Structures are given as structure tokens and as C-alpha cells.
């Protein structure tokens, strides 16, 4: 039996699968939050989710619109101050995976959420770094999820807000007390991993019905594919059902207020 699903659903389901029960995940708002909660509601009920607002081990019933919705606090084991969150829990080494989105990503998985253009004369001013710069270096590893397009996947980001492997792939070499960095990037077209040597992102799996050409078309550099390119397993009926119910609850919750 084959199921109907969108490329966005494919991305969320694939991103969710990257999380396992034993992980302590520092969750970025938006796509990472959707994926992390899908994981918690499906195969990883015991995954520990942490939001930078200070909510430790939270289990929201609807997706938060902001990083600090009341839902996150009310369903958390405990809520700590923001400096404690960044100092004790993130910098203190208790986060196994940081789950991030981005506006731009380059071939060495550097992330730009600061601006397009020149810093002093920006074409587009983006929100800025937020928690990402230190999540990316203090978490033991980093997962990234972002929609695939030529605007997003650029050869070199305009600004390195958050380091992947640096402009040359070597930014983490010989740096003490730093995490492994991005270990997987999940888009609506494919999954990518850094090459073990060069750290350049390589497509390791194409989502169902996606071609190499689709990915090449949507990527701003000469993208490489793994020798043993896989096909991402399609979403299961349960995954789709849980994801759609979560999004429906969320939509109704965020529209229905005051």
C-alpha cells in the first residue's frame, strides 16, 4: 500500500527518526520542534526535549509558536532561568544533540541566520544567532533540518552565524571541548552527511520520488552524492497520522485565542 504525503511531511518524519529515546535534545523553534515532538509522540517517547526558555524535559501537547509558550513550562519536569540553561545545561555538557533550523547553509554546514548582503548595509536583515552559535559547539552533535532551495543551500554563507565546519571544513580541528558538529542535514528532498575527511556535505539518501537532478537543481554548489546512495523509507501510516494530528491541534490552538 502506498501513502500520500507531502515533501514537508517527508522532511519532518525523516528528521524525527534521527532522534532516539536516550537523547537529550536542545530544540530549535519551527521545523526542529515539529520533528522533535513527532519523535516523542512516535518511536522515542522518552527522548528528553529542552527549549532555551529554560524548560527541561518538556512534553507539549501542541507545538509552541514561540520558544517559551506556557505549554512548554506547564508540561516540563522543571523550568530554570535562561542563564542556568545556557551555562549549566548547554555549556555544562548535558546536551547530546542540538536540533537547528537555518535561513542559509553552505557546503561545510555553516549556518547563516544573521543577514543577506553586507553586515553594515544588509539587503535582508534576519533575526540573528539566538541560541544557535553555542548550541552548535557545546552540544555533542548537531542535527539540521531546513527546506532545500538554491536560496538556502549556498556555496558559502554570507555570514557564519553558527559554525558547521568553517569556511575550510577545519574549524573544529584541535579545538578543545567542542562537539562533533553537524552529523546530519535533513531537507524536504534528501538527507546529507558531512564527508568524514573534507566535511563537505554529501547526499546519502534521496527521499521517495526525488531525483538527483532535483537535488542538484536546488543546491547552490556542485553537490556530491554518496557512492551507495539510499532511498529514504517513506513515512508510515502511524507517523503521518500523528504528525497531522499534531499540526491540526497546533493550528487550532494558535488561531483560537483572544
Amino acid at each position, binding site marked *: 500500500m502506498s501513502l500520500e504525503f507531502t515533501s514537508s511531511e517527508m522532511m519532518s518524519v525523516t528528521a524525527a527518526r534521527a532522534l532516539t529515546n536516550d537523547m537529550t535534545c536542545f530544540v530549535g523553534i519551527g521545523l526542529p520542534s515539529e520533528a522533535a515532538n513527532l519523535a516523542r509522540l512516535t518511536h522515542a517517547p522518552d527522548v528528553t526535549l529542552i527549549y532555551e526558555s529554560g524548560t527541561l524535559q518538556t512534553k507539549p501537547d501542541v507545538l509552541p509558536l514561540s520558544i517559551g509558550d*506556557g505549554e512548554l513550562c506547564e508540561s516540563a519536569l522543571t523550568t530554570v532561568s535562561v542563564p542556568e540553561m545556557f551555562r549549566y545545561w548547554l555549556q555544562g555538557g548535558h546536551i547530546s544533540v542540538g536540533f537547528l533550523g537555518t535561513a542559509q547553509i553552505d557546503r561545510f554546514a555553516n549556518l547563516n541566520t544573521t543577514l543577506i548582503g553586507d553586515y553594515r548595509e544588509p*539587503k535582508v536583515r534576519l533575526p540573528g544567532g539566538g541560541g544557535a552559535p553555542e548550541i552548535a559547539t557545546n552540544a555533542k552533535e548537531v542535527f539540521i533540518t531546513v527546506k532545500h532551495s538554491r536560496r538556502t543551500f549556498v556555496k558559502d554563507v554570507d555570514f557564519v552565524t553558527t559554525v558547521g565546519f568553517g569556511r575550510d571544513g577545519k574549524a573544529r580541528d584541535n579545538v578543545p571541548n567542542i562537539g562533533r558538529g553537524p552529523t546530519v542535514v535533513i531537507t524536504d528532498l534528501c538527507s546529507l552527511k558531512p564527508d568524514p575527511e573534507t566535511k563537505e556535505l554529501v547526499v546519502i539518501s534521496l527521499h521517495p520520488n526525488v531525483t538527483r537532478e532535483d537535488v542538484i537543481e536546488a543546491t547552490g554548489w556542485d553537490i556530491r552524492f554518496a557512492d551507495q546512495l539510499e532511498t529514504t523509507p517513506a513515512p508510515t501510516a502511524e507517523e503521518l497520522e500523528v504528525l497531522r494530528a499534531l499540526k491540526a491541534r497546533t493550528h487550532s490552538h494558535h488561531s483560537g485565542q*483572544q
Partner: protein
Amino acid sequence: MAEFLSLQEAVSKHINNGDTVAMEGFTHLIPFAAGHEIIRQEKRDLTLIRMTPDLVYDQMIGAGCAKKLIFSWGGNPGVGSLHRLRDAVEKGWPNKLEILEHSHAAMACAYEAGAAGLPLAVLRGYVGSDLPKVNDQIKFIECPFTGERLAAVPSVRPDVAVIHAQRADRNGNVVIEGIVGIQKEVVLAAKRSLVTVEEIVDDLGASVNACVLPSWAITAVAEAPKGAKPSYALGYYDRDNAFYKDWDGIARDRETFQAWLNDNVFEKGVA
């Protein structure tokens, strides 16, 4: 001891043109009522500090209160851009806005160090980021014990801290519950502090290790029911997520923004 004032009196007395003002509340308990009063009193040339500028600073920037913004994430959470902030940065409207940009970790540490009375915060941060290239306040030091290279930023010591909290008792002691953010730190780091509260009560009802600010650590307390709306106050009212989404349309355009400001801030007077 904190002085009980009306919000109008408190803003008039304690916030001056040109001051460095930090209004905090991490998504929760954002002091919107105080922000609107600052707009109504047409305060000018403020250096505004806030980890997540959010709608409250979008409104104050659009109203022309700010000359500089120190921040670490300037968006409408879950929605998109802060259009008034972008218009000021990209087009200089209504006036040029200087920005100084950090990461959350650095700003959290800078407030924490300010509360701790230190001139600097040390963190394992900014590794590989371009932010130190555009913010000359970010320096690096070497640990005298391990030789490790660590980031250092100046502590935040604002002229005035403004926060919103659930309750004050009649002596001016304040309790904050839920997502407590950086509120205790900003009050302790600031020279003066203004706390708006949902209500003033006989008994704080605070648990033994609750986040409580003693009256003698606060300059002024003002009652401002619903003072955090459209943000929220745990135990009082929910976040108005629909308004956050609507703001995107209101703020995108200068005219709709100014109309909103007239109808909802200037004509409303003090709550």
C-alpha cells in the same frame, strides 16, 4: 525599599531620554504595558537591550524611541521578521538604529555577570562564528589554568531594568513564576528597576525557593493588570498567539503600523 507608583509616574520618574534600558521577559511576562507607556511619553535616544527584541521593541523602535539596540535574536517567534526593526536597520526609518549583536549564551552570561557585579562574563562561545568580526565588544582570553581560549564579553549594567511579574506583596516584594528567563538578573544588574505586576496581594504565596525579588532590590513597583499582553502571565492569561501572527501584517507597512500605534497606544492612555 521599592516605591509604589502608577505606571505613568514610574516611567516618567525613572526612564530618561538617552538611558540604557533593558526590558526583559523571555517570551513570557514581556512588559508590554511599560513599553507602551514609554512610547506615550515619547522617550527618545534610548539604548535598548533585550535578548529577544520581540514585538515590544518592534513597537518602540517603530515609534522612534531607540537609537541603539543590543540583542541576540530579533524576530517574531514562529512567525518571521520584526518589520519595524528591519525598516530601521535597512532603511533608517523612523531613524537610524545602531545595532550591537550577540548570541543568546553571551547575553545570558553578560546579564548574569552584571547581576554578579562583575565587569565581564567568560563563556565557551563564539567558536567559529563571524559575530566577533562585527561586534568589537567580544574578546577572547586565555584560561590561566588550562590555556583554553574562551570568549569574554562585558557585563550588562543598564541604567534601568523593566520587567513584568505576577505579584507583589504590600511591602513591594515580587514573585516571578514559570519561565523566569533573565528577569532576576536584569533587575540586579541595573542601576534602577521598574517592576510591573498583575496584582498586589497580601501574601506572595511563593514556595520556599521561588524566584523572589526583595523590595529592597527594586526601585519601583507599578500595578499593571494584563501588563504582559499579548505575551502571557502564567496563572493569569495565555499568550495571544493569534495577535503575534497578525502583527506580521500590521508591522509590515509604515502606515498600518502608525494607525495601530495611534489606536492602541496613544489613544488608550494609561491602562
